[in-house]
């Protein structure tokens, strides 16, 4: 299984994400710069968290228009699996690969803490190692995580069962407590929580490991 991590100027979770992939899957991922022409052949592409381009204009807005994102979009349309974590989620919504948008937290606070999340469904590439409705603990660390979509879009997201996970308790103003979202084809996952920071009990929780294990499970069965 080939895993690629894309790094933009201002990305700061690339090494944590690479360590998590290595620890959980025993695979050394490739970290590439967004200035590369092409993404190498990959079974899973991860856009990690951080503050790409200093959050200028809007979080993720500049990164979403990098030329490498044309290649990412091509892979997405071919069905390659993609995860966007935190700023990666914002980049995917700015690129319109995921619906909606992430606004400033309603409290205006940067929130950095472990939160309880409910897994909405376990029949996807990313969640087969969880139970449906299972409550897990994964940290969040963001200022712009307040999920917004117009009513029609929100209705279609719910009708198509595209929610990946929800905050158990309202935390940042997200509509329907959405913390993570799939595209319609279920090959793209964007989430505000940081699973790469939850792969070792020494840091409080390893509930994030199973996102990576689920991916490996898909390729080994």
């Amino acid at each position, binding site marked *: 299984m080939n895993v690629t991590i894309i790094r933009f100027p201002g990305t700061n979770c690339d090494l944590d994400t690479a360590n998590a992939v290595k620890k959980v899957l025993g695979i050394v991922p490739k970290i590439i710069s967004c200035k590369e022409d092409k993404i190498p052949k990959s079974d899973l592409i991860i856009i990690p968290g951080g503050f790409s381009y200093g959050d200028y*204009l*809007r979080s993720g*807005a500049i990164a979403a*228009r990098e030329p490498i994102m044309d290649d990412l979009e091509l892979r997405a349309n071919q069905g390659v699996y993609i995860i966007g974590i935190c700023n990666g989620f914002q980049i995917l*919504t*700015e690129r319109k690969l995921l619906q*909606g*948008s992430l*606004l*400033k*937290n*309603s*409290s*205006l606070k940067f929130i950095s803490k472990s939160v309880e999340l409910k897994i909405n469904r376990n029949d996807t590439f990313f969640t087969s190692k969880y139970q449906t409705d299972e409550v897990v603990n994964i940290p969040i660390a963001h200022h712009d995580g*307040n999920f*917004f*979509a*117009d009513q029609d*879009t929100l209705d279609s997201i719910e009708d198509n069962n595209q929610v990946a996970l929800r905050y158990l308790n309202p935390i940042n*103003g997200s509509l329907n407590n959405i913390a993570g979202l799939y595209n319609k084809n279920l090959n793209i996952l964007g989430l505000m929580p940081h699973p790469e920071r939850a792969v070792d009990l020494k840091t409080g929780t390893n509930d994030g490991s199973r996102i990576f294990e689920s991916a490996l499970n898909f390729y080994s069965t």
Partner: protein
Amino acid sequence: MRAIVYIRLKTEVLDPQGQAIESALKNLGENNINNIRQGKLIEMDIEAKNIQEAEEKIEKITKSLLANTVIEEYSIEIS
């Protein structure tokens, strides 16, 4: 030509920054100012044959980058 793009959050989108400014004004004793909304203004020089061509170009770049029409609306001024 000089173009100005005004970008605002759509009215149905919550604006916590506007609310925070309003609350600071109340702390300063300004109690008659309400419903503050914060937006942004982006200005630029543009070369074009005429106003119409400039407007079309600015509209295009606003839709593709300057504004996120999921949450924002915009207006364009050219002089």
